[in-house]
């Protein structure tokens, strides 16, 4: 099985450049604006889209993404509407890989089999579920692989060599290396430490490795792009979105552009990177 994710990383490898992965929260601050933002991301230079599923209790997220989730929920966002958003995006874009990222409970309550079928039909390519470590693979990971979706696992600074094979065993699409022990948007990642970690993970897998958590600027994105197969930016984009809202937290005429412009600047940073050493 080849997903849009596999195809995209193969293309980028041919081009000799690192992927730029963008994260935004589905439904932040409302469904219509959120769809416009997601549509704008590929044009602004995003190679892969991660779309957050809002959840009331996001235990691995910092204040920015927590607030984004609450804005989306306040606007009436649900998992079902998140899939509607993906379906609407796919009408105009059948190439950009789209990964849903979030926590297990909304999926568990939706029903795993129904969710996987609906996600596949809507045009979702992969899943990143923060609170499902390999110890819980039977819950969603194995069924997702059977349904033809990539299950992208997080590896972290605490995932040592002994544990890596278990973490990588059922991972597909790419590996998401969390560059810091911490929550989203907290500290900045050190590019040299990231380089060593990526090299360590590469000894265990052929999969592309994308690095996230703590990347906020084009310079930082470039530094990571030189060490890894992709860099992920989330909190900085969510903050740009938030800063464009009115005092009631509603979208303004500037909102879509605010996210698109920062995406374009970050993409320039990534594209200016020297090819990662193989």
């Amino acid at each position, binding site marked *: 099985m080849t997903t849009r994710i596999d195809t995209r990383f193969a293309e980028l490898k041919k081009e000799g450049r690192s992927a730029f992965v963008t994260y935004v929260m589905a439904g932040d601050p409302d469904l219509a604006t959120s769809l416009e933002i997601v549509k704008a991301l590929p044009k602004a230079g995003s190679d892969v889209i991660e779309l957050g599923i809002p*959840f*009331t*209790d996001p235990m*691995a997220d910092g204040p920015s993404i927590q607030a984004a989730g609450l804005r989306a929920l306040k606007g009436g966002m649900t998992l079902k509407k998140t899939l509607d958003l993906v379906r609407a995006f796919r009408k105009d874009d059948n190439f950009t890989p789209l990964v849903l990222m979030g926590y297990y*409970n*909304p999926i*568990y309550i939706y029903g795993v089999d129904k969710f996987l079928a609906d996600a596949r039909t809507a045009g979702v390519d992969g899943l990143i579920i923060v609170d499902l470590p390999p110890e819980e693979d039977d819950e969603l990971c194995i069924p997702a692989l059977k349904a033809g979706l990539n299950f992208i696992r997080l590896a972290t600074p*605490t995932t040592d060599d002994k544990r890596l094979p278990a*973490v990588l065993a059922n991972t597909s699409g790419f590996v998401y290396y969390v560059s810091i022990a911490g929550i989203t948007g907290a500290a900045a990642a050190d590019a040299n430490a990231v380089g060593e970690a990526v090299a360590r993970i590469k000894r265990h897998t052929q999969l592309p490795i994308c690095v996230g958590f703590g990347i906020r600027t084009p310079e930082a994105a470039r530094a990571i792009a030189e060490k890894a197969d992709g860099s992920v930016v989330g909190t900085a984009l969510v903050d740009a979105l938030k800063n464009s809202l009115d005092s009631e937290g509603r979208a303004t005429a500037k909102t879509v552009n605010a996210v698109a412009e920062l995406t374009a600047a970050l993409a320039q940073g990534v594209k200016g990177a020297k090819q990662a050493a193989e």
Partner: protein
Amino acid sequence: MNKPNSYRSGPDERGHFGIFGGRFVAETLMPLILDLEKAYTAAKADPAFHAEMKGYLRDYVGRPSPLYFAERLTEHLGGAKIYLKREELNHTGAHKVNNVLGQIMVARRMGKKRIIAETGAGQHGVATATLCARFGLECIVYMGAVDVARQAPNVFRMEMLGAKVVPVQSGTRTLKDAMNEALRDWVTNVHNTFYCIGTVAGPHPYPMMVRDFQCVIGEETRTQMQEAEGRLPDSLVACIGGGSNAIGLFHPFLDDPSVEIFGVEAAGHGLTQLHAASIAGGRPGVLHGNRTYLLMDADGQIQDAHSISAGLDYPGIGPEHSWLHEVGRVNYLSATDDEALDAFLLLSRLEGIPPALESAHAIAKVMELAPKRPKDHLMVVNLSGRGDKDIPQISEILKGRKQ
């Protein structure tokens, strides 16, 4: 569902009680959770660990806690003979210290010097701050901003003991958000930090480990009832937020079919309104590292709990309770804010023992159950905490009632 051979054999090696429990945590925490499981398994098998625990439980905590015949309450209700298991007499004023002592002993074995905890009513926070002071460990307690306001005496106590109390402003600003924030701290400081969870929830091995440390309550009750009456009790009653005082009393009796067991959830304003009764009003979901009964909406979003008692104000319950509910071994009831308040006043006036508002929920159901039972029926209720911390809040409410 088939009846198991024993109700005391769980969890399995993956931390499951039936479909409940498990290890639903971020990868960053997983290696540490596996380390903790290893360290706890080793401690459990080490006689030196048990000897050390026993010494501190006796000389520092003040165990065994008495099993007290509540003569005037019994007379007043006119039915079952009621005994109070006096956990409120423990050092720090609640059952929480039994578990904290155990976890701090494990943390010391693991070489961790920084302890974090979440707290609702503040009893677990106080117990953690106390033992961190005793063993010279850094202590950070996360507490919802709403709870900081309604449990002021415990906040002062924690600070006096040298702990840092962090008011949590996210979400509903109560116990669940304190737990989210503690998990975020743990993910960030995973290398040097031990998370001392206050109840039988969280990822495996916490529900099992906390239960084991609290089982001293039920084990003592067994011996004490044998001494007092020469037999087993006929029924047990305890309040349930996460459910650690309840499981501690219940677990040693689960395989005695003659013992009826009642857990009491917080029904808040009533089960059709805002409440905190996860079993009565929730369904299975995944939060804070385990699958269990949760209060949530149709989309799987966690709903706000409400209880007059900060310690019960949580939208979930320990996974072993969810399982005991599904297999039918324990009956889960609920008591409203008003019922708990009446029980608080009744016990204060009849026995001179103001219970914690949490424990008052258990007393409230004793008031219903005891009159329907014969005079030779032996009923044990866990008096899990003392009410001193609640007096400012209760006096406000009573003032309001008079007006």
